[in-house]
């Protein structure tokens, strides 16, 4: 029994069908609890009520990066071991990741308006997220444009590889280009934490919620893609017969 068993679409459909209700329930629960709890936290002495935005902004930003990472791993698995489910999972993750990036950007801008006095600041972190968003758009567009599914999977996989390297490079180039206003990581595992537990726990719940939400969406979308692919294959066979 190995993880590669689930590379079989039928097995994947069955296994994901079993765990999906739990993940959906967990995602709904954690996201709602995290966000409501976050919404009810007391005001920060410096940021006022705007601190509540962090419970959207940080989890979304986290998932925006992790989604791209997941796409990179899935693309590698496809390019090396040629498991179709893997390619479809990468395809499924892209729109979700793009939405997460967009949420991180928008909440960042809305938060920046009263705090930094500007909607948009060409700050390294914001800028690299914008670049990441562009990468997501290109990736999705390439999937849409290519008709043959296997070629599409190959080419988008290549784009994801090269894009990852350049997204990473951009991150550091942008840092070099402009030192920003953005605070450093507000969460750290090391002692001497900068965030009080009043905010930390709802943030953790919210992060878990966003993660489960992402997982649930990717699983559902992968199932959609498998079914679509299957139907297309059946129709093609019928057409040939």
């Amino acid at each position: 029994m190995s993880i590669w068993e689930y590379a079989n679409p039928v097995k994947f459909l069955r296994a994901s069908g079993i765990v999906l209700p739990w993940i959906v329930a967990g995602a709904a629960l954690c996201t709602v609890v995290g966000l409501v709890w976050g919404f009810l936290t007391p005001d920060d002495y410096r940021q006022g009520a705007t601190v509540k935005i962090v419970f959207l902004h940080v989890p979304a930003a986290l998932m925006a990066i992790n989604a791209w990472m997941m796409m990179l791993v899935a693309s590698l698995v496809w390019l090396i071991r040629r498991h179709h489910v893997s390619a479809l999972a990468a395809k499924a993750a892209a729109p979700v990741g793009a939405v997460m990036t967009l949420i991180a950007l928008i909440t960042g801008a809305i938060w920046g308006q009263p705090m930094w006095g500007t909607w948009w600041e060409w700050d390294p972190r914001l800028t690299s997220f914008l670049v990441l968003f562009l990468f997501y758009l290109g990736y999705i567009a390439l999937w849409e444009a290519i008709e043959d599914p296997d070629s599409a999977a190959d080419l988008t996989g290549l784009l994801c590889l090269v894009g990852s390297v350049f997204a990473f490079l951009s991150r550091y180039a942008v840092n070099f280009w402009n030192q920003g206003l953005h605070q450093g990581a507000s969460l750290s595992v090391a002692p001497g934490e900068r965030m009080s537990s009043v905010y930390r726990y709802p943030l953790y719940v919210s992060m878990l919620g966003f993660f489960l939400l992402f997982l649930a969406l990717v699983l559902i979308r992968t199932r959609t893609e498998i079914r679509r692919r299957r139907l297309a294959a059946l129709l093609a066979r019928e057409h040939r017969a």
Partner: protein
Amino acid sequence: MIELGKYATTVLSAYGISLVLLVAIVLQTVRANARARRALEEYDNRG
């Protein structure tokens, strides 16, 4: 009702826009999934 002070619009719009986006992607996902499932079932029923 919770007191948001002078940042009420800021916080509410951030939550509003984010929730709209999240709901949109969830709805799109669920709908596409239902459509794919139905198409496949239709095909199977047709034989």
